[in-house]
Structures are given as structure tokens and as C-alpha cells.
């Protein structure tokens, strides 16, 4: 066995040297940075080696066992001899080693090497794009985000001077801004501490109406009428019908509101004009016009340094923004996202209970890694709806959409019924279709619905897909060749794809091809061992160096046979998939291949020496 492994190693070694030399000599087809040229060429060599690896292993396996069997053929005068069982043990071990190498090469090394190559080619482009985006953000005053981009570029290339410069500049601007704030804060330290205390109160932390009452009273006493009214109204919403605080909350709410109205009607000094704007913003919030409220408070916030410290402005801007972000997203979130897309040209379809269907297509997908890919941006999203008679009902297009998972608990019963969301689902994709400008109200991007009769609309501004969020993320992988998908994802996709416009048999066959490749190759190697026995070298014959000249033919013949056998393997798998379908076909295929393994093993054990 050691001899066989030795000869096999020599074969692989020579093969690798030849592939290495070819890889090094081949001209570069892509623009590769000078510093990475050698690594890139090494990767090409490895890819070449992996391409020829099965053929080299087959050739090496046959040659090594042909020599080993020839020189140690004694003790096999009868079929199923003890010597043959011993040889079988050795053959099985070497075969398993070969299968392990092939599987590891196919499933792991190949992917790693091709990723490394694309990284070498794409990395300089990505770094330069990170730096460009970072510089843009720096110019527009988004210093923290500029630092994030600089850091991202430095992760890819820690020596990048441009990225360091960007980070330093952004840090400098950020420090300058905060030191300016400190000076102003020192001037009004007492007021500031009071303001911060107010601002730090978060409505989500208030679980009981009594706490709201306390906050409302506190705000009322300090003549902070907006806060008094806000907390009083919040308390009323949290009250049960028998709550003893209800009346007091109502009274506080109305008194605070009266005071707000009174101040609004006073003569318009500068302070009162600001109050007027705050009033309008607050009124918009009360009337659930969150978009208007957001821009009113945002404009106030940006109007002066003092306003950026104003507790009311900060607090209600935050409230309005939080409410908005449940429905819309900011356009600047999608700024330069195209460079970071992880998938392109994704499409899938799904049927509704009434027989109508939607087809979803988007040109690009960007996931937010920090959220575990839960938040995603879809570029150029189209949703095309057909009636159950396959007539076009409407189309929807939006340049960018934002997706996040939403718990089905928050979806009412009738919507669930209409969409076909069953109780087994936990999270479904919630797609926000409208995006807004962070600073300018006129900056908006809305969905465009076009109905079959030509009428258009921009409502609704969101969409809920009737499928589990996990399935949605799986379907985003359908644009990739199933041969390159992670095996577990492929396994999950097999049971999913059929309902979404993809053929289950195609995915099942690829799964079978990949999962059963090791078992099938084991059968091939055991069969080759019999072939090597049948063509073993003479017991007193020594290996002649001139025979090496015949090896190219040998390798070509091996390549031809390997390809034929692999094609037959795929056909057999497809036939089994067609016969049984889905995961059942996997079980049937395992049984079939185990039987084949037993047959080829018996054939090998039945070999004897005096056959000629």
C-alpha cells in the first residue's frame, strides 16, 4: 500500500509541477496588480491541477497497482483467496484516500481558489470604490460613515495610503465638530444637563400609563408643553378603560395642548416663530403625518447650532424618523450600493390561493452583513402580476427597495388570508418600496404601478411576500449555478424551488451528483483495481523508463473514460430523480450505488493469478 501511495504521490507531484509551469507561463487574461501576479498565476496552476486531478489519480492508481500486483501476485491461484482479501483492504484504503482528495478538491479547494482569483482581480476595484464613496460622504458631512468605508478599505488592504488619509481626514472633522460642541455646551452646561435628561427618555421604555403620567407631570411643571402633551397622549393610549390615571392624563393632555395653542397665538418673536414651527411639526405627528413632521423637525435641527441642542427638536425628530423608518427608507442608504451587490438577476414566481401569480425580478441585491443579511436592498425591482387566467393584471417597478423580515404576528388575519400566509410561517419578507431624502422633502422615489388598462398609481408603498423569509433568502441564490452553491443551501433549495419557478429535478440531480460523487468514485477506483490486476506487470518484469513515453496516451485514455463514466453517472442520477423525485431519490441512489460497490468488490475478490 505504501508503494502504491508512493507512486501515486510521484504522479501527483509531477502533475503539479507541469501544471505549475503551465500556469506560470500562461499569459494573464485579466488586469492583475503586479504585487499579486505570482499568487494569481499560482491559483491558475492549482485550477489546472484540479482539472486534471481525477485523470492523474486514475492513471497513477492503475499504474501503481498494476506494478504492485505484478510484483506481489502470489497466493491468488483460487478465486476469493485470502491474499485477494488483503489486497482488497489496501485497495480500499488507497481508494478512500483518492476519493477524499477528489472530494476535498471539488468541494473546497476549487471554490477557495476561484474566490481568491476573483478577489485578486476585484479587490483593487472594490478598494477604490470604497475610497470614492468615503470621500463623497466626507464632502457631504457624513464623517462617521466615511470612517466606516475607510476602515472597510483598510481591512482589504491595510497598507492603502488613500484609505488612511480618508480615515484621518474624517476623524479630524469629527473631532473638530465635537470639540466645537463641547465649547458651546460649557457655556450652557446647566441647561444642557436638564435637556439631556429629557431627551434620554425613550417612549418604548415606558410600559405603564402611570410612568407616562409622571413624565407628563414633570414636563408640565417645567413648562415643556410638547413633552407634557406627548406623554399624556401616550399614557392615554396605554390606559385600560378602568385605569385610575386616565382622567388625570386627559386633563394634563388638554391643559398642555391649550398652553401650546396659547403660545402659538402670541406675537411672533424669533423664539415664538421657532415655537410655531415646533407646533406645526408636533401637530403633524399628532395627525400621523410623519413625513411632514420629520422634515419640519429636520429643517429646524439644521437651521442653527442651538437647534441641534434643542431637546424638543432632537426628541421629536427622533420620534418622527423612527416612525418613518417603519414605512420608508432614506435614499442615501442606497448610495453607491451597486458596487457591493452580492447577487444579480434574481427571479422567482409564487402563486396565490386564488390561482393568480406574481413574478418577482430584481437586477441587484445588496445585503447588510452586520444584520446577518436580514436587511437587504433590491435594485430595479419588478413585480409582475398575472390573473389566474394568465392575463397581465399589473406591473410594479421601483429603482430601489428595502427588505426586512417581519413577524407574522404583526399581520392581521384578513391580510394573512388574502396573501396566503399560513400559521407555520414565522417571518415573512416586508418590502419597503418608497424611499425619501434625508434632508429634502422633494427627494422621493415611489413605486410605479401600471395596470393592464394603462392607469398608474404609486400605492401601496410596501409589499409583503407570502413566503418564509428564509425561503426568500434561499431563492436569492437561484441565479447561481447549483453546482457552485454551498451543499446545505442546495439541499434546502431542493424542497423549495418547485413552487417558485425552478425545476426540482434539476436541483435534485445536482445534489445527487455532488453528494454521491465520493461513493461513485469509490466504485470506479475498486473497478480500476480489477483493471489494474488484469493488466498487471509481469512478476519478473521491471519497469522500463521507455514506457513513460506511452503515458500521454494513457492519460488521454483515462481522461476519455473518466468523462464517459461521469456522464453515465449524471444520467443515472437523473433517471433516479425522475423515478423517485426529491430526497427519496437520494435514498434510492445510495442503495443502487452500494449494490454496485458490492458487485465491483466481488469482481475484484474473484480475480486469480492463472487466468491467462
Amino acid at each position, binding site marked *: 500500500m505504501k508503494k502504491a501511495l508512493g507512486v501515486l504521490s510521484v504522479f501527483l507531484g509531477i502533475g503539479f509541477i507541469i501544471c505549475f509551469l503551465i500556469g506560470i507561463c500562461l499569459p494573464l487574461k485579466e488586469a492583475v496588480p503586479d504585487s499579486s501576479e505570482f499568487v494569481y498565476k499560482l491559483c491558475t496552476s492549482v485550477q489546472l491541477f484540479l482539472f486534471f486531478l481525477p485523470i492523474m489519480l486514475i492513471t497513477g492508481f*492503475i*499504474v501503481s497497482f*498494476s506494478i504492485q500486483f505484478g510484483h506481489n501476485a502470489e497466493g491468488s491461484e483460487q478465486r476469493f483467496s485470502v491474499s485477494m482479501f488483503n489486497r482488497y483492504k489496501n485497495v480500499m484504503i488507497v481508494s478512500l484516500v483518492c476519493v477524499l482528495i477528489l472530494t476535498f478538491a471539488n468541494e473546497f479547494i476549487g471554490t477557495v481558489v476561484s474566490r481568491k482569483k476573483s478577489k485578486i482581480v476585484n479587490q483593487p476595484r472594490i478598494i477604490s470604490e470604497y475610497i470614492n464613496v468615503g470621500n463623497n460622504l466626507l464632502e457631504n458631512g457624513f464623517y462617521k460613515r466615511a470612517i466606516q468605508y475607510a476602515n472597510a478599505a483598510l481591512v482589504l488592504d491595510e497598507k492603502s495610503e488613500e484609505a488612511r488619509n480618508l480615515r484621518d481626514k474624517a476623524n479630524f472633522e469629527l473631532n473638530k465638530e465635537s470639540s466645537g460642541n463641547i465649547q458651546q455646551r460649557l457655556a450652557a452646561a446647566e441647561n444642557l444637563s436638564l435637556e439631556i435628561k429629557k431627551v434620554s427618555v425613550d417612549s418604548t421604555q415606558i410600559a405603564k400609563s402611570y410612568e407616562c403620567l409622571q413624565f407628563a407631570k414633570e414636563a408640565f411643571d417645567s413648562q415643556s408643553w410638547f413633552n407634557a402633551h406627548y406623554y399624556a397622549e401616550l399614557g392615554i393610549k396605554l390606559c385600560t378603560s378602568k385605569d385610575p390615571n386616565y382622567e388625570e392624563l386627559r386633563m394634563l393632555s388638554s391643559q398642555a395642548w391649550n398652553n401650546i395653542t396659547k403660545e402659538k397665538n402670541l406675537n411672533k418673536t424669533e423664539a415664538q416663530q421657532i415655537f410655531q414651527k415646533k407646533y406645526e411639526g408636533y401637530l403633524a405627528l399628532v395627525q400621523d403625518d410623519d413625513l411632514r413632521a420629520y422634515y419640519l423637525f429636520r429643517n429646524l435641527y439644521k437651521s442653527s447650532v442651538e437647534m441641534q441642542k434643542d431637546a424638543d427638536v432632537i426628541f421629536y425628530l427622533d420620534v418622527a424618523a423612527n416612525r418613518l423608518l417603519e414605512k420608508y427608507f432614506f435614499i442615501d442608504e442606497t448610495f453607491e450600493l451597486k458596487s457591493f451587490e452580492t447577487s*444579480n*438577476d434574481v*427571479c*422567482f*414566481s409564487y402563486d396565490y390561493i386564488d390561482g393568480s*401569480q406574481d*413574478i418577482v*425580478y430584481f*437586477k441587484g441585491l445588496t445585503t447588510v452583513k452586520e444584520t446577518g443579511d436580514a436587511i437587504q436592498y433590491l435594485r430595479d425591482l*419588478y413585480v*409582475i402580476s*398575472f390573473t389566474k387566467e*394568465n392575463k*397581465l393584471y399589473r*406591473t410594479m417597478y421601483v429603482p430601489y427597495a428595502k427588505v426586512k423580515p417581519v413577524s407574522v404576528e404583526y399581520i392581521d388575519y384578513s391580510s394573512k388570508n388574502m396573501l396566503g400566509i399560513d400559521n407555520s410561517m414565522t417571518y415573512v419578507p416586508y418590502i419597503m418600496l418608497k424611499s425619501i431624502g434625508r434632508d429634502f422633502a422633494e427627494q422621493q422615489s415611489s413605486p410605479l404601478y401600471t395596470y393592464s388598462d394603462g392607469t398608474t398609481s404609486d400605492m401601496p408603498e410596501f409589499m409583503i411576500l407570502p413566503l418564509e423569509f428564509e425561503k426568500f433568502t434561499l431563492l436569492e441564490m*437561484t441565479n447561481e*449555478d*447549483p*453546482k457552485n452553491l454551498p451543499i446545505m443551501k442546495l439541499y434546502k433549495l431542493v424542497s423549495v424551488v418547485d413552487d417558485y*419557478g*425552478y*425545476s426540482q*429535478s*434539476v436541483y435534485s*440531480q*445536482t445534489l445527487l451528483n455532488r453528494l454521491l460523487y465520493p461513493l461513485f468514485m469509490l466504485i470506479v477506483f475498486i473497478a480500476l483495481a480489477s*483493471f*489494474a490486476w*488484469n*493488466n*498487471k*506487470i*509481469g512478476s519478473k*518484469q521491471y519497469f*522500463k523508463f521507455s*514506457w513513460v513515453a*506511452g503515458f500521454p*496516451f*494513457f492519460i*488521454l*485514455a*483515462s481522461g*476519455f*473514460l473518466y468523462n464517459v463514466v461521469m*456522464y*453515465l453517472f*449524471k*444520467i*443515472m442520477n*437523473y*433517471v433516479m430523480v*425522475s*423515478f423517485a423525485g426529491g430526497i427519496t431519490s437520494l435514498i434510492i441512489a445510495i442503495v443502487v450505488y452500494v449494490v454496485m460497490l458490492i458487485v465491483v468488490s466481488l469482481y475484484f475478490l474473484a480475480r486469480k493469478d492463472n*487466468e*491467462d
Partner: protein
Amino acid sequence: MKNALKLLWMYLTLLICGLFLITTILMLYTSVLNFVAGQENALFNFTNFIESFFTSAIIILVLVVPFIVYYRIRHVGGAIQLVFFVVLTLITWFAFLPLTINLENAILEKKQISKSEKVLSSDYFRKTDGEIYYFLDDFNLDTPQEEVDTLVIDTDEEGEFEIQKIQPSQDFVLVKEAVPYNDILIKQTFNPAEVSTKVDLFSIVEQARVAWNKGFTFWLGFFSLGLIFACLYAFSNLFDWRLLNTCLIIFASAAIYCVNTFYFYEPVKNAMDLFMQDKSFFVFLNKYVDNSLLCLINVVFSLIFTIIGIIRLCFRKKARGM
């Protein structure tokens, strides 16, 4: 003599087992070619079986000669074995093959073989370069008059989608690109090499049918393939190591088969025909033989193989004499 008789026994075994094996594989292969995603795909139907059986019979009869040569590597016999081999080759090419083709003609004439209908199922995404197709109804080539509503998505950067009415036709991009498969989805899973989809690996079978049906001289021309396969006998003990002889036979058989198939790849065939058209020798030969250039190549290489074998035999005898 014993080895010569064993050769006969092996010949019959190879024919029967090969016929069974190749028919099975071919039937499965043909089924896969006819598979369409999302449809019930039958693995066995009688028409397919009959066609596969005769095609397999012709293939195994063409390939049985190199298989015997392979067998001969491990079971070397004397001159009688060679005589047996020659007789078996002649019987195969001048009795069994013509008989099979005649039988096939007779059966296929009686039985009107109906081709299975070619349908691409609706509700599946099918991708080609730059476009994604989604049929809203089945795309049936047997009803070319019925246009199919199809969602076509252009995946170019500025591309959009449109709903087209597509008339089923063999020239439709999804049909053309799927060849030799019915459905491009199935083709993509097999990921066949570009050349194997353009070169018809079964063109030899068709050549055999055509040659026999045209007349005896044409059959003699086609026999050049049998001749070159038979001359591989000369390689059966070229090296002292059986393994190398085996590999040489496998490689040479594959190469001969590929050359004789690749010749009928349209661009190659056109180039060869162009080459022959102004050569009076080939013009004359083409009256009696199809593809005379290919025949000539086969015959020339047969002679080379034979000469190599004779030289090797002389050297071996000389070495034994020493």
C-alpha cells in the same frame, strides 16, 4: 486453438452483453434528451426501445472488433487466433451489420414510429445569455400556430421586461440552444462540452445505414472504419506491459471513433468537400464511395498500423531467436 475458440465465445458474449448494456444506456440517454422540467418523464416507451435497440446493435457491431482486440491482449493466441479474428471481423461487417440494417428497415417500415411531442412546460424560468424566459402556457412545437404568452426579461443593465407572443418553432432560441436535449434546463445540468453538443456522436450509425442502403461499393467505403478497427490488432502486444497495450487500444479506438464522427461536423464536412471538389481522383471515387477522403485516411492508417505490427513481430522473433 483453445484461445481461438475462446475468442469466438468472447465475441458472442460481448455482442449479447454489449447489446443489452448499450440498449439500456441509450434508452436512458434518449429519455434524458426528451426530458422536460416539470413534466412526467417516461423512462421506457416501446418506440424508444426499438430505436435504441437497433442503434445499439449497430454500435456494438462496429465496436465489437476493438473489444476483441482488447480481449486478445490478455489471451494471446497464434496464427489460428488471427484467422478467427479476421473471419469474425468479416462476418460482423458483411453479414451481421447488413442483416441488422435490413431488419431495422423492415421493422421501421411496418411500424410508423411516431415522435413524441416536444413541449416546454410553463411556469419555469429558462435562462439564456442575456434573457430569461417564462412561459405562461406550455410551448408546444406540435402546435406552431398557437402563440404562447411569454414573459421575457432582458438582463442587460438597461434592460426591462416585456410580454411577448412567441410562435413555437425549431428556430426559437431556447429550442436551438437546447440541442440535442429538449429542454435547456436539462442541458444545463449536464453541462456538456461545447464540441459534444455540436458533433453527433451517433453519426456513424447513420453512415452505416446510408452506406448499406446505397449499395455495395458504398458499404466497402464504410468498411474502411472496420478495417482500421481491425488493424488495431497490431497494437495488441506492442509493449511488454499489457497495461500500455490496453491504454493504446482504448486511446486509438476513441481517436478513430472521434475522427470518423468529427468528420461529419458541418464546418469540417464542408471544408473536406471543398477540398475534394476539384481533385479528379476524389471526384471519381465519390461516384462509388461516400466521403472518400475519410475512407482514404482510414485505409492509410490501417496500413501504417499493420506495418508497425509486422515490424514489432519481426523484432520480437529476432529477440527470441537471439
